[in-house]
């Protein structure tokens, strides 16, 4: 088994094996990456409660997924509490997921054009999900 980390051998982060960028961008992006990093932690903490609560209610409580239908949704969204819950979960999850995917695209794409278009696709899909999800929560009509 491995040696425990101790004072003499603290955990270390080794030099990256990937090649450094060919050219260093002239303009700095400010602290964007720091805020993105922090957002992942803050949203992650909230999502643990929101998403695990959502999964427990929808899949386990009462009849699980078998009891879900239009009437069930209408009942839940008659309460501002669940509307707020779902709206918050939608925005936090989509932004958290989009930033995660952005990181993955940046890590694995090699050509600039591939990276650009994959990210455009990601942003378009994320915009659609946020717009559609928000619209549905705010304009839901149980008497439709």
């Amino acid at each position, binding site marked *: 088994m491995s040696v425990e980390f101790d004072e003499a051998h603290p955990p270390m982060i080794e030099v990256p094996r990937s090649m450094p960028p060919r050219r260093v961008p002239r303009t700095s992006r400010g602290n964007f990456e720091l805020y993105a990093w922090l957002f992942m932690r803050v949203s992650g903490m909230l999502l643990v409660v929101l998403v695990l609560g959502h999964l427990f209610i929808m899949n386990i409580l009462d009849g699980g997924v078998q009891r879900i239908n239009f009437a069930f*949704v209408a009942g839940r969204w008659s309460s501002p509490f669940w509307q707020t819950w779902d709206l918050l979960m939608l925005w936090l999850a989509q932004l958290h997921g989009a930033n995660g995917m952005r990181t993955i695209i940046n890590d694995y794409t090699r050509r600039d054009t591939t990276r650009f278009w994959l990210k455009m696709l990601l942003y378009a899909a994320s915009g659609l999900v946020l717009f559609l999800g928000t619209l549905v929560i705010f304009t839901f009509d149980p008497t439709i």
Partner: protein
Amino acid sequence: MSSVAPPAPAGPVVRKKKPSGTLYRGREGMWSWVAHRITGMLTFFFLFAHVLDTALVRVSPDSYDRIIETYKNPIVNLMEIGLVGAVLYHALNGIRIMTIDFWFKGPNYQRQMLWAIVGIWLVVMIPGSYFMIIHTVENLFGSK
């Protein structure tokens, strides 16, 4: 860059014994990171589909109920258990990452914390899977 490993000294090299397993190369540290990416991506793609299917409540009760029938299919129900397992791992490992980032002793216990969350995952998923599938099984065999 104070966190990088110092360059190897020139001249006759005395091979220093490295502590086995850093945070990000090989062993538990790396594999938990790989699993975090995969579970995150799975959840992201599911979220996209899930917002679209829920948006059908704005079309008509009938179209929503028809798409939700898909989720009640036993095979899809099994896939939902997989999704819950992926989300639960991502949530627990996210808490582990925050502990590594913000608790000064976190990096020293990252390996033990991984096995702790694997334990919690099993303790939640074993009864959780039962309660997620039981209503579907009851429906399937007409005992309800």
